[in-house]
């Protein structure tokens, strides 16, 4: 197990990460609204994040995720609503709130000319850590993120994966209560992404509340205790991944692999029982109205097209299916389950 530097491991494996007992909520957002001219970026968004949880904030491009993070981290003013982080409003007490936040932007933006160690020490200076503490902290974090052998390497010379790791390390220098991770594994190869996910789990296990935005729904499902889906600036769903999946349990899904390429338009025309067809990893994810009828129509379709059905599986709806369903509906039926 990776050991989180400079902190004690929570003695309670059931509910790790309890740091301050004043409140069980770290982030409370109520009626948050933001407009860019005529464009409504956020409308009456309300949610809360519990202390010590990993909270995934999902949505398609343009849904308002980045706007939310920018408001919560004090980079953008809101038009309306209340935002309370660690007991204070970021608009009225930005220094207090920022001292408790660690933010990992979607782009790794440390100083390219500074070495890994100097970047971490400089971040420590900006957060007011005494010299001895920041030097120790930098060494701990370099070790924790397996970057000790790159300590003297300039940030600009690192690979994308290592840059991402150091950017996350920089957000942890001051031992924040809340960590905002904006697309932490975006653009990384599979091993790097997996390593980072494990690091995120470890950071959370050791006490930090994690606010995660990602396009990777499997990642969100695997990491987070609760999920918020934002569509067109409005909360479309909020709950545990299981609760959100429940919303689409009525969907009947088939994964079908054909022996050769087929055209979705033709399939939908020939198979009226198939409502939607999405290509997925060489197969087709089909949403069907009635499974038996769809199977018969698919067999007929394959025969007509001169292709074989290599594999066919019935699928339990995933968070991604729920997400797609909500996106299709345009988030018109908000459902907050917890």
């Amino acid at each position: 197990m990776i050991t989180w530097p400079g902190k004690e491991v929570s003695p309670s494996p059931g509910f790790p990460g309890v740091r301050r007992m004043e409140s069980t909520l770290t982030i409370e957002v109520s009626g948050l609204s933001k407009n860019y001219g005529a464009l409504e970026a956020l409308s009456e968004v309300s949610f809360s994040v519990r202390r010590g949880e990993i909270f995934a904030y999902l949505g398609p491009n343009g849904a308002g995720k980045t706007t939310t993070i920018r408001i919560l981290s004090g980079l953008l003013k809101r038009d309306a609503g209340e935002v309370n982080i660690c007991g204070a409003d970021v608009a009225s007490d930005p220094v207090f709130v920022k001292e408790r936040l660690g933010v990992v932007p979607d782009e790794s933006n440390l100083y390219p000319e500074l070495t890994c160690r100097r970047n971490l020490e400089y971040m420590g200076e900006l957060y007011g850590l005494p010299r001895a503490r920041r030097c120790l902290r930098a060494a701990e974090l370099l070790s924790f993120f397996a970057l000790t052998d790159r300590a003297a390497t300039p940030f600009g010379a690192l690979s994308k994966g290592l840059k991402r790791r150091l950017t996350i390390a920089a957000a942890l220098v001051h031992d924040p209560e809340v960590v905002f991770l904006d697309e932490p594994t975006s653009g990384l190869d599979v091993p790097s992404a997996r390593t980072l996910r494990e690091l995120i789990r470890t950071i959370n296990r050791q006490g930090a509340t994690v606010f995660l935005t990602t396009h990777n729904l499997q990642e969100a499902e695997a990491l987070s205790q609760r999920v918020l889906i934002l569509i067109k600036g409005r909360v479309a769903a909020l709950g545990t991944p299981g609760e959100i999946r429940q919303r689409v349990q009525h969907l009947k899904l088939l994964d079908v692999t054909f022996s050769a390429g087929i055209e979705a338009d033709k399939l939908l025309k020939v198979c009226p029982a198939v409502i939607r067809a999405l290509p997925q990893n060489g197969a087709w994810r089909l949403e069907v109205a009635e499974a038996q009828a769809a199977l018969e129509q698919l067999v007929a379709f394959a025969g007509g097209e001169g292709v074989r059905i290599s594999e066919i599986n019935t699928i339990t709806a995933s968070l991604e299916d729920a997400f797609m369903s909500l996106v299709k509906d345009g988030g018109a039926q908000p459902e907050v389950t917890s």
Partner: protein
Amino acid sequence: MSQLRRALAISCKDIESYYGKPPLITWGLMFPAVLILSLYVKDPATYLAIAPGIIAMTLLFGNTSMAAIVITFEKRAGTFQRLLLAPLAMRTIILGKAASAAVYGLATALALWLGLKLVLGMPLVSPLLFVAGLILGAGCFSLLGLLAAVMVREVFEAMTLMNFFRFPILFISGVFMPLSQLPAWIKPLAFLSPLTYVVELLHLGVTGRSEFATPIVPLLAIFLFLLASWLLAELLFRRRAYA
């Protein structure tokens, strides 16, 4: 105190990252040194009438350019966002950025004077006034550079914006011609230029002569310009730094 320490950290980092580089130091020194040497070669008896003005001009161009370049460069690279995300008051960021640019300007101007002293025997009648002129001028010009940088996104935009201000004031601020010899209609404009007062303070420092009866006038005037630049910088940074 904590915020002051953080401002110092920003300044030290910027000096380490940007201002300590050999090309910048040589650019800041070589250009004005060659210009003054040319004047000396032409007429050793009169070069002192222009040399303080050239040092002031170097301070103006060096400080405004560097302060603007550093901010626009960091905005483009995304690293400026690190400062906005950190628990820093806006005035801490302004102080940190302006101070590093001012230190650069001050160091190059002093090095330039030292070089000229060694090579040409350039005098220094009043070191206090000379250094005061450099410090106040460097602070004021650095803040003007920050002002330009926060209003635009690209380096060239910042340079274009500043050139509308920098080049005209070169000709009205007594750099190449004493204030008393300027055409009557330009004189009132000269008093609106911060460069005028820096030039006069440097003249006082180097030769002991000035167009003003007392050094208090240029000292007070450049101090007021510094104060106004600071207040304007705070106002604009609060409005536009997050853009």
